């Protein structure tokens, strides 16, 4: 079979787009195939944030934020990039201790941040309720409108896009829905929660999230407001959970998250879950109760068992590369994912250690690599 491109990328979400752009920048001809499904990139919040639940997550998100800052000047307005900072909220002394620990860890890594006491918190964000213990401001976190950013990335020279659903993969060959086979030097799988349709061996599960956006209330909130309970309650629980996450959009709208549910693939907005999530947000910002919500929707995060993505060679399929399992952080970590993938494909030393994200941690070591 004659190769149709140097690399075939499956999936035109933010991960596939970032990989395609990075590959094209190396002079490769890239064919991007996308089935036009409702992906996470279209649904998510696009919060760009440094997370430090473990060193690998910190390394990946920190490198990514640096890369987003480099990319930012080139982004068109429609991508709505802002570096408005994240304000982590501590409701009590215990959470404030978490904030202080986080502060130490991040400072040690050179991440710009500051601890904010209770009274100062309300000076910065007057809409917050009284009596919060304090917070931690991560100055250079940001926000992004991810669907527009993915589209912009895919406009790079050397990228061809095609609407098509891949129904099977064999190494560096893919079969389309219409039965046609395509091949390339390498195939990159970046199709989000649908990854298990094509590679059932991947340990990826959908994690549902609800979101709501309000009408325009310019100036009511400046930073993205996230509760510190998030670290413990939302991330690690197995049952449904919610956490306060309030993001000011450049339009003056407020974007409210976050909820997490396993074991469902039904995209319907569930009233009880939406209500629980909103209640959590109003506990931090009481005035929210009087604002109008105009739209709610859901999305699915592709969760791996350790919360980290799978980036690298498929250990049992020659020519197939993986960039999947980005859970609730894939917009943030798209540039680092692309850097890791490209470096491995070219046999170069990546800008950060690749090991924590290698697929073999779940799939076993390559038989014949």
């Amino acid at each position: 079979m004659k190769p149709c491109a140097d690399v075939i990328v499956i999936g035109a979400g933010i991960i596939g787009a970032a990989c395609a752009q990075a590959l094209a920048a190396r002079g490769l001809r890239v064919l991007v195939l996308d089935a036009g499904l409702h992906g996470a990139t279209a649904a998510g919040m696009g919060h760009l944030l440094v997370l430090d639940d473990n060193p690998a997550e910190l390394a990946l998100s920190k490198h990514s934020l640096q890369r987003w800052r480099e990319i930012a000047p080139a982004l068109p307005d429609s991508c709505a990039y802002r570096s408005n900072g994240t304000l982590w909220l501590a409701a009590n002394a215990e959470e404030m201790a978490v904030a202080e620990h986080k502060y130490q860890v991040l400072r040690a890594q050179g991440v710009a941040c500051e601890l904010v006491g209770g009274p100062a918190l309300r000076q910065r964000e007057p809409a917050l309720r009284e009596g919060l213990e304090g917070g931690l401001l991560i100055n250079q976190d940001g926000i992004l409108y991810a669907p527009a950013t993915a589209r912009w990335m895919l406009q790079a020279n050397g990228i061809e896009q095609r609407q098509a659903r891949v129904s099977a993969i064999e190494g560096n060959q893919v079969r389309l829905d219409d039965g046609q086979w395509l091949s390339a030097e390498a195939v990159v799988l970046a199709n989000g929660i649908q990854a298990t349709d094509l590679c059932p061996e991947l340990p990826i599960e959908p994690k549902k999230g609800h979101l709501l956006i309000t009408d325009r209330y310019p100036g009511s909130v400046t930073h993205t407001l996230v509760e510190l309970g998030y670290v413990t309650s939302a991330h690690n629980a197995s049952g449904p959970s919610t956490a306060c996450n309030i993001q000011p959009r450049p339009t003056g709208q407020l974007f409210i998250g976050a909820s997490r549910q396993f074991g469902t693939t039904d995209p319907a907005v569930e009233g009880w879950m939406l209500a629980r999530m909103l209640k959590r947000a109003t506990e931090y910002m009481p005035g929210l109760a009087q604002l109008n919500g105009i739209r709610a929707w859901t999305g699915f995060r592709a969760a791996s068992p350790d919360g980290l993505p799978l980036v690298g060679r498929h250990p049992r399929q020659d020519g197939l590369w993986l960039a999947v399992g980005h859970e609730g952080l894939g917009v943030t970590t798209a540039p680092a994912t692309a850097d890791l993938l490209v470096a491995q494909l070219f046999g170069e030393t990546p800008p950060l250690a690749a090991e924590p994200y290698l697929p073999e941690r779940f799939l076993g070591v390559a038989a014949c690599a």
Partner: protein
Amino acid sequence: MSPEQTDVLIIGAGPAGLAAALAAASSTARIVLLDDNPLAGGQIWRDGPQAELPEQARSLRERVLGHPNVRHCPGTRVIASAGPNTLLVEDAERGWQIRYDKLILCTGARELLLPFPGWTLPGVTGAGGLQALIKAGLPVRDQALVIAGSGPLLLASAATARHNGARIVRIAEQAARGAVAGFAAQLPRWPHKLLQSFSLFDRQYRTGTHVLAALGSDRLEGVRLSQQGNIVEVACDRLACGFGLIPNSQLGQALGCALEQQALAVDGWQATSVAGVYAAGECSGFGGSELALVEGAIAGHAAVGEHPAAQALWTRRARWQGFARALNRAFALNPALKALATADTLVCRCEDVAYAELSGHVGWREAKLASRCGMGACQGRVCGAAVQHLFGWQPSAPRPPFSPARIETLLCLEDISS
């Protein structure tokens, strides 16, 4: 908080909803009649400082609102489904749940507004939209008005404007002369309609005429028309332009009711495809107020199990369905209207999305993501219909909240977790 309980819940207090309430109230059923306007009456009987309601409307409204079994909730919107047979609703003060045995959807229709160059200039409104503004008190005395688009609503709107002192300088009907004349010739079969709609058949009425552009820089100064093949410009202070009506089927769609040609599909009892849910009036297809009244009465009787009383109205309904068919045939939209917008004409005014940003896409969802079309405050109620007409993209069923709602109201949904 435990939900309010009712036997019959009626959404919409236009002709269909009022007739449904009256019919159902003849039993002992408890009825809640809910409408998002401050006063009952719907579109045709929209009340306000400059409105003059016909006697029939006044007396129907009095009988319904004065009925001991009927509780009227004005200024109230439906926000979400809150479990089986339960809706979450909101008024200016509070949000609460209503649990019903039977639901009758009488949500009416809205105008189809199609984008053309200049349509977002101040001074340009819908045709029915202008009528509603005038009834609500907008002064139009001595102003020059052009009314354009399609259907009898142009004439109704012109009548209201003229009655309030406006000068109508042109009524531009897109349908061809032959079609309109054929329709007019049939009108003696429906005598009320003849009086209501065509008493205005006047010097300024032009068939085969449609708007090309609204002219002016900061505010409307005139309108360019394609008039029976010629291009003419007419100076005016206001342009009211509507291209017929589209059913408000979204609520029914969200509750799972099947659609037929954009309207809620119903059987002879006005029952939808969802058990216990009925639909009447223009949400189940366009046909004017007489059809809405008789459909509402059938739905009201059927919902309380009075099938003979409902069936007795079938002949009358068939008659007004005939009118509806003639109307829809005569005023079918000219395909040329799909080409009015130019590349930079805004299609979505909430999010400032131009025609060119939409035209390359394959479907509504993709276009929406790329352009944010329909994602603003009106949530696609205006541009969704325009886009469906222009590109044939079917909008998906709305998700809760069905209309903007206080977050406090949405918190009421927490009770239904089980």
